[in-house]
């Protein structure tokens, strides 16, 4: 057993080193004042614009009224969450969010991978470059412009209706955006149209890193091009696919906002309204801030859990990590 006096001595010693460490820290900080000056103001900016709003979450435990300060509000405990979870519209928004994320995930992955595989098979380099350049285009335009174009295309006298009429598949023009059940399909087609070219880039890069010797070996075995694609290229990019897939599962509750909001309307609301729109409608339009924050907070908390879990799984499977 140690002597009590000795123990005291060591503890003052650590306190002393701590103090000395602190002194050293401040001396270093002074020496690096240029770096401090270049970064600390932006950290303050960061705290104001990114961390202070987190305090706003306490609104979800209040009955928030505009015009009163944050601390003068009435505290109501978990009442808002109870109201939220007994609100059918919230569950519908949650369903829509998850379904559309899932569509995004499945459709987005398969189309981007397919496009990368097809582009990789092209021998005509000029054609390849033209296809790529054109396929990136929709990625760079805003969702507002995209929504405008999609509305024109799907309009009663738009090209889609006209094609279907001419092919005799329909008798009357269809109001595509007015049929709620079709919204998910339109959403899926829209996101593929907008981002398939862009999403293929990462797979093309992964394909470029596959060892050419593997193709030569397959050729010696008499593999056709299709078989090479299936047995060499696809397994070659599997690690990238797996990592991206897992990371994207982390964003399950973040199915985006713009396409749903811009293509949504009263007639397809039952299928287009996701959590983001729910928050916007309750918060900004109906002034029910507390309920809206409760919904937003629920989403963020679930998202963070999913993202952290997805990240750690991806890291364990592979050394590649997004950040």
């Amino acid at each position, binding site marked *: 057993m140690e002597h009590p006096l000795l123990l005291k001595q060591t503890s003052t010693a650590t306190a002393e080193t701590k103090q000395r460490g602190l002194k050293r820290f401040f001396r270093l900080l002074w020496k*690096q004042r*240029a*770096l401090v000056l*270049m*970064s*600390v103001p*932006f*950290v303050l*900016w*960061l705290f*104001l614009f*990114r961390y202070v*709003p*987190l*305090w*706003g*979450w306490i*609104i979800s435990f209040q009955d928030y009224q505009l015009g009163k300060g944050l601390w003068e509000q009435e505290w109501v405990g978990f009442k808002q969450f109870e109201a939220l979870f007994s609100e059918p519209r919230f569950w519908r928004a949650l369903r829509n969010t998850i379904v559309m994320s899932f569509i995004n995930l499945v459709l987005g992955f398969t189309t981007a991978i397919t496009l990368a595989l*097809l582009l990789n098979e*092209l021998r005509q380099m000029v054609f390849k470059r033209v296809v790529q350049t*054109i*396929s*990136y*285009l929709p990625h*760079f*335009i*805003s*969702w*507002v*412009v995209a929504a*405008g174009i*999609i*509305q*024109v295309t*799907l*309009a*009663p*006298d738009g*090209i889609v209706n*006209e094609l279907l009429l001419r092919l005799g598949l329909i008798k009357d023009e269809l*109001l595509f*955006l*007015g049929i709620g059940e079709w919204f998910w399909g339109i959403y899926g087609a829209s996101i593929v*149209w907008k981002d*398939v070219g862009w999403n293929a880039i*990462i797979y093309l*890069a992964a394909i470029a890193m596959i060892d050419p010797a593997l193709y030569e070996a397959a050729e010696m075995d008499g593999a*056709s*091009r299709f078989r090479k694609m299936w047995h060499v290229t696809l397994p070659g990019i599997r690690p990238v696919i797996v990592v991206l897939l897992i990371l994207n599962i982390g964003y399950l509750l973040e199915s985006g*906002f*713009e396409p749903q909001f811009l293509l949504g309307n009263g007639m397809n609301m039952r299928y287009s309204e996701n959590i983001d729109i729910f928050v*916007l409608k309750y*918060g*900004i339009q109906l002034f029910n*801030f507390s309920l809206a*924050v409760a919904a937003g907070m629920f989403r*963020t908390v679930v*998202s963070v859990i999913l*993202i952290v879990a997805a990240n750690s799984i991806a890291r364990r499977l592979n050394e*590649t990590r997004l950040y």
Partner: protein
Amino acid sequence: MGDRVFETCNYLALTLLMVVTLYPFLNTLAVSFNDAQDSIRGGIYLWPRKWTLENYKFVFEEASILNATLISVLRTVIGTVLTVFCSAMVAYTISRPEYVLRKFVTIAFILTLYVNGGLIPNYLLIRELNLIGTFWVYILPGLIGAFNLIIIRSFIENLPDNILEASKIDGAGDFRTFFDIVLPLCTPVLATVSLFTGVWQWNSWFDVFLYNSSYEHLSTLQYELQKVLSFSNASIQRVDFNAAAAQGGIGQVTPYAIRATMTIVASVPIIMVYPFLQRYFVQGMMIGGVKE
């Protein structure tokens, strides 16, 4: 034999993809140059039937749209310059291994990738800060993104060590090193970040909708287009077209034609620049996507 079939199908599939991607743009372009009354009859595909510049004239004679164009340009230029400069500066500090606050600053920024207060708390903060109804609401909230920071930092870290060392030995302080050496050497990555930021600024409309929808002098092109879109949700009811035209007293020009014209106006700057700059975009995507 099978290879040739495969090859043909491949070319066909990719050609189809190009057609599907481009057709809507070209169709919108054709409608924007076609006589508005004539367009209602339908049947405009890739080429205008009755050429006119009336739609463009109408759009640009509207004072609010001219002003919105100016605000769009301003937010794109000012926002991009400030974002790139500030991001580069912070990225430089967190690339210095000796910096005592390096870990703290890095983590503070990276955490924001995972958590944010969400729509309502952000809205209330902007309100408290009296930023509603100001131009700065377009610039300040999104000034530095963690993603840009990571891209620039990894670029600086991959610069040859001895360049920065030599500048230190020459007695240059961090400010001098940053301005005279790091900034010029970072041109490629800063070009990439500028492009992403510029496109993002140009395309933004939600902040206008949320904060400045009752301040007409601060409206942007994208928001004006969004208003036109929600005003004449034409895919729902065709009757709306004519009703809206009559209501707005628009006369010769229809909401349908206005929408097509504004869609072109709002996207032309990007369509013009991106083919020349796509190399930088792709580079940026690669640096950000596959690290380590």
